[in-house]
């Protein structure tokens, strides 16, 4: 991408020079160079405190400087700080910055500038950041990308659009919170979820394991994932289309245009479609002797999924009153056919769901509103609705309509339903960062959530359950303090105060208040070796879904208590070189968690529906390790492995006085050992200058795990078998990445993959991806 910048730069310069005399403004550009006069990649150049990042070639440029004297500072790992006052003359000024390599370590490490991803990884928190831009030529969704992070396991019930559950160090479901650009995604509806969002939407994905920084204001129990869409370039077009197995089509369009005056329009649109008609294996059954008498392979026939989403925003950038002020709207809809219930035996042929998203939003940010104070404000309101449609009174099996009729007013799953609801969720977030000098920062963060469900079912208009008030108001207030000695050590402490008030109908109202706190520290033993430690006493409130149910499969439990966890993390990061360009990066971490009043899903007494409930305790020990290797730009490889042991700490089962037979047993149905490895080889200037070919391989392994309690039973244990899958990909890009052709083969050995018991995932699949990317001024 930076190559494009290089090409366009002369054009930019030309434009800038022709315009520069226009107003009393100054332009400062130049190059940051380090040892041997080599450019320093991605150095942060501060011009009067406003940072801009230099390009891969060390080039930087700032337009529209309104003062004739500015302070230029560069702080770069491995170099002595650079600071100089520069007097500008009208028009363009050139400043070549020479950084002096810091004396220590000079012989050990060849230090290059940090990318934003590396910078995130150097925080005190246990965090893994993924550079999503490297995946932009693939057909991965965000959840596929997350699945490659150590400690993360994404479980899906089927193909594209199927319901998914992400587990992070053993915590899953609502214990892990998702954010997009720091804004909680808690309930953006089924249309806007990480398993249907293309990876191209993100510039970076940050995975906070356990302890969550204060500026991600939310009540996560076991970690958080922040998807950073970034500002990217100011003017660009990025279009990709892919087609592949199971009639899967995906299109992504990202574009932005920004005028000289700072008026900006940004558009992201994407579409996914798949028949998901992959083959599944059936055990012999007796119901349809012609089909079930032998084990069989059949295609899924009622599993079509599609969604379409447009995210548009209009606003201004780089104004004195705002770095960014955007009014936006997210519009989307989704359609999902439901092929099975929780087990392959339950087959449906007509039941489906629809969802739509109408979400206006406001985003504001300004750094140095007063000196040292950075402000971010966000607000949005989700007016979208979800609808469950089950109106066909027939019984299906894997061979289609069985001919069996259910009662006249029955659906496939009970009484006919067209229940439709809106949750009217509103969200307001505010973040204030105040820097006192260079070492101290105070952060105040507040997140307010409002939930007010209204629903109706034209087929069951009398069901008064739909009429009851279901409202929740939640406020999370956080305060944090950080002291940092750059590149040596930092420590932060923070507290969070959460208040939630709920109203369920006229009779059940509840409220809860919880105070939590945490601390995170890091120490750089050397530039190459970083130690991290963090602790948080964290609280999570029950979500509206857990409290009010979904009026379908989830029953209400307004009496749920907030859950609490003690999270400890330690980590180490070590970079080393084996000489001659062989670079290694080793990251390892260990975790301990003890969660009390743990909220989990259980079946109701009559097993008709699920209900959320509190359980006494769950304890987790775990560790993960990741090793990455690269040799220049030519070769990169990595492997990451995770082990986690979750233990049931509920000593007494409810209603019984003896110690539970499964006390201290390993928690079932949670993958506990898994990992992946990848190798990527890149050939620059392949068949022509500016062209590149890269070929990659990815392996994923999940060790066999238990569906039910490991200690119980012997025969026919319903274990989920160990799985090993291999993906390969090839990418050819032309004209410095403007045109890209990608080919992917997933699960090339066609292994039977299961994430949940007996629920098969797709076998071997092929995808072709075409992408056009243009970035210009």
């Amino acid at each position, binding site marked *: 991408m930076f190559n494009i910048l290089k090409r366009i730069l002369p054009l930019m310069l030309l434009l800038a020079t022709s315009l520069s005399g226009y107003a009393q403004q100054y332009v400062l550009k130049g190059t940051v160079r380090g040892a041997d006069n080599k450019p320093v990649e991605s150095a942060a150049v501060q011009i009067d405190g406003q940072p801009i990042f230099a390009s891969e070639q060390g080039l930087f440029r700032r337009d529209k400087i309104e003062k004739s004297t500015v302070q230029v500072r560069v702080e770069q790992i491995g170099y002595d700080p650079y600071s100089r006052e520069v007097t500008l003359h009208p028009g363009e000024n050139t400043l070549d910055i020479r950084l002096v390599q810091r004396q220590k370590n000079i012989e050990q490490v060849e230090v290059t500038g940090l990318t934003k991803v590396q910078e995130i990884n150097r925080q005190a928190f246990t965090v893994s950041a993924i550079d999503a831009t490297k995946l932009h030529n693939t057909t991965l969704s965000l959840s596929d990308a997350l699945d490659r992070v150590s400690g993360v396991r994404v479980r899906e019930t089927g193909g594209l659009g199927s319901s998914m559950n992400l587990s992070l160090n053993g915590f899953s479901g609502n214990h892990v919170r998702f954010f997009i650009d720091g804004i909680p995604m808690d309930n953006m509806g089924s249309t806007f979820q990480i398993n249907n969002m293309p990876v191209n939407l993100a510039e970076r994905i940050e995975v906070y394991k356990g302890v969550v920084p204060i500026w991600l204001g939310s009540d996560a129990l076991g970690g958080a994932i922040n998807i950073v869409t970034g500002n990217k370039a100011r003017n660009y077009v990025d279009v990709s289309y892919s087609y592949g197995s199971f009639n899967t089509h995906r299109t992504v369009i990202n574009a932005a245009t920004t005028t000289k005056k700072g008026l900006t329009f940004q558009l992201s649109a994407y579409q996914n479609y798949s028949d998901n008609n992959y083959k599944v294996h059936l055990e012999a*059954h*007796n119901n349809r002797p012609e089909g079930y008498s032998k084990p069989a392979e059949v295609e899924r026939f009622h599993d079509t999924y599609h969604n379409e989403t447009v995210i548009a925003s209009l606003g201004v950038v780089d104004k004195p009153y705002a770095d960014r002020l955007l009014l936006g709207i997210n519009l989307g809809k989704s359609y999902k056919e439901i092929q099975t219930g929780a*087990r392959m035996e339950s087959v449906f042929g007509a039941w489906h769901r629809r969802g739509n998203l109408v979400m206006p939003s406001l985003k504001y940010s300004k750094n140095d509103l007063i000196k040292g104070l950075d402000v971010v404000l966000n607000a949005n309101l989700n007016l979208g609705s979800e609808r469950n449609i089950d109106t066909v009174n027939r019984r299906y099996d894997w061979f289609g309509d069985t001919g069996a009729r259910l*009662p006249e007013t029955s659906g496939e799953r009970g009484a006919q339903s067209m229940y439709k609801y809106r949750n009217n969720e509103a969200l307001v977030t505010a973040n204030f960062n105040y820097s006192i000098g260079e070492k101290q920062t105070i952060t105040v963060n507040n997140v307010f959530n409002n939930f007010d469900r209204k629903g109706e079912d034209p087929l069951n208009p009398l069901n008064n359950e739909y009429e009851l008030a279901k409202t929740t108001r939640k406020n999370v207030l956080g305060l944090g303090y950080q002291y940092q000695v750059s590149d040596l050590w930092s420590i932060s402490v923070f507290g969070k105060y959460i208040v939630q008030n709920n109203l369920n109908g006229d009779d059940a109202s509840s409220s809860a208040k919880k105070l939590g706190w945490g601390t995170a520290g890091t120490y750089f033993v050397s530039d190459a070796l970083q130690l991290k430690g963090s602790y948080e006493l964290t609280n999570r409130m029950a979500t509206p879904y857990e409290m009010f149910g979904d009026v379908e499969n989830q029953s209400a439990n307004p009496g749920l208590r907030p859950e609490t966890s003690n999270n400890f993390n330690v980590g180490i990061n070590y970079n080393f070189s084996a000489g001659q360009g062989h670079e290694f990066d080793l990251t390892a971490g260990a975790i301990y968690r003890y969660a009390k009043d743990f909220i989990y899903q259980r079946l109701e007494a009559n097993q008709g529906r699920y209900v959320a409930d509190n359980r006494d305790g769950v304890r987790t020990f775990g560790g993960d390790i990741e090793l990455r290797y690269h040799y220049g730009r030519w070769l990169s490889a990595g492997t990451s492995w995770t082990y986690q042991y979750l233990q049931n700490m509920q000593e007494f089962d*409810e209603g019984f006085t003896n110690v539970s*037979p499964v006390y201290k047993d390993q*928690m079932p149905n949670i993958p506990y050992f898994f990992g992946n490895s990848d190798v990527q080889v890149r050939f620059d200037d392949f068949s022509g200058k500016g062209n590149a070919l890269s070929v990659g391989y990815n392996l994923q*392994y999940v060790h066999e795990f238990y569906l039910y309690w490991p200690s119980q039973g012997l025969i*026919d244990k319903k*274990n989920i078998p160990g799985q090993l899958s291999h993906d390969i990909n090839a990418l050819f890009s032309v004209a410095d990445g403007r045109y890209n052709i990608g080919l992917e083969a997933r699960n090339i050995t066609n292994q039977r993959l299961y994430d949940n018991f007996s629920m098969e995932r797709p076998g071997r699949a092929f995808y072709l991806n075409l992408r056009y990317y243009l970035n210009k001024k």
Partner: protein
Amino acid sequence: MNIRKLLLSAAVVVSLTACDKNSDGDAGTNPVNKGNFILTVTPTAATDVADYLLTTGSLEEGSITTQGNGVEQDGTYRYYVTHNNKFFSMLYGQGNPGAVTVYDIQDGSLNKLANTVTETVQAFAPVNDDILMMKISRNITDPTSTWYRFNTNSLTIAGQGNVNTAELADNGELAFYSWLTQVGNKVYAPFFSIKACCEAGFGTDYPDQAWVAVYNYPDMTLEKVIHDDRTSFIGRYFTDGLSVTENGDVYAYSSAIATSDGAQDFNTTKPSSVTRINAGTTEFDQSFLINFEELSGGLNITDWLYLGNNKFVVFSNTEAEKNLFSTGNIVGILDVTTQSYTKVSGMPELKDIKAITQNNYTPADGNTGYIGVNLTTGVNYVYKIDANAATATRGLKIEGGTLTAIEHLD
């Protein structure tokens, strides 16, 4: 690239060693506990639980556990029935189709014969070579209940049909079958009347009557509905209220648990009672009525087990503990010939009993029954009932969970 090779082989080695370990935990047979009795156990843990099937040769002694033992069933909330010398493990499927696994016993161990799928139903009973199953509506706007004949030879649904339960009740409410029982070549289906609407789903305005629908088999045409206004309805939800004796007489009990609201507002004025339909007739014998509340000193019947020779093990509750669903912990012997009731001795103290198993076993010798007694400790026992002596004797100990059924196959 040596380093690359090294990395790859390291990854492969880790993967392979990981594969080798611990992948054969599900193989093998059960050498410890063999026999022709099948015990079904639901763990006490509230989450991620599966039922376990245990086999044993004796109900009278020893101990058995689900710890590292038993055949794991997919999910809990299962119903078990034996018929045609096969054991059926049926998943109550929450409105989904219900998966069924069929077993027989070979050399004292369970042997899986087939997987199949039926409907989720609220009543089922062996009739001829079939298991007759009924999916019963509880929604006044949808008064259709559906029956299925599941053939235990072919293991397929051999026939199905609908019943309009609003027409059957004929009182503005819905009829809800408490259970199905084969009597001669007919099916007797006692039912209760429910409002089937809104908050009072299982409540009724007709609390003081008993009904039994009589169906021809296999076409399930309605022959007649037998009424009785001396008692409240027969049986209870998911519970068989009829027993056929050796001479063909049909005895029925009423728990007297009709309510106005489907919860605790009992509105029947009738006592818990036992009535009779004489062999060869399709009417209640108006000359036969046991007022069980009077006979037992205030108890109400919640379930019973027919031992033969006109003797029943009766599970009952006090008036104060009367409720719609759970089986009573008070165990006694009812002799319908002498119309006498005796509590058995030798049972654990009532406060220590968590629940009595609903699905118990009798060799039908007129004297012996084996009942599951689940204690609040979580440790459970089979008690052997001797009807003549009116005693209960502690037998096999079960650890790991609640005993939900005792079945036997030849």
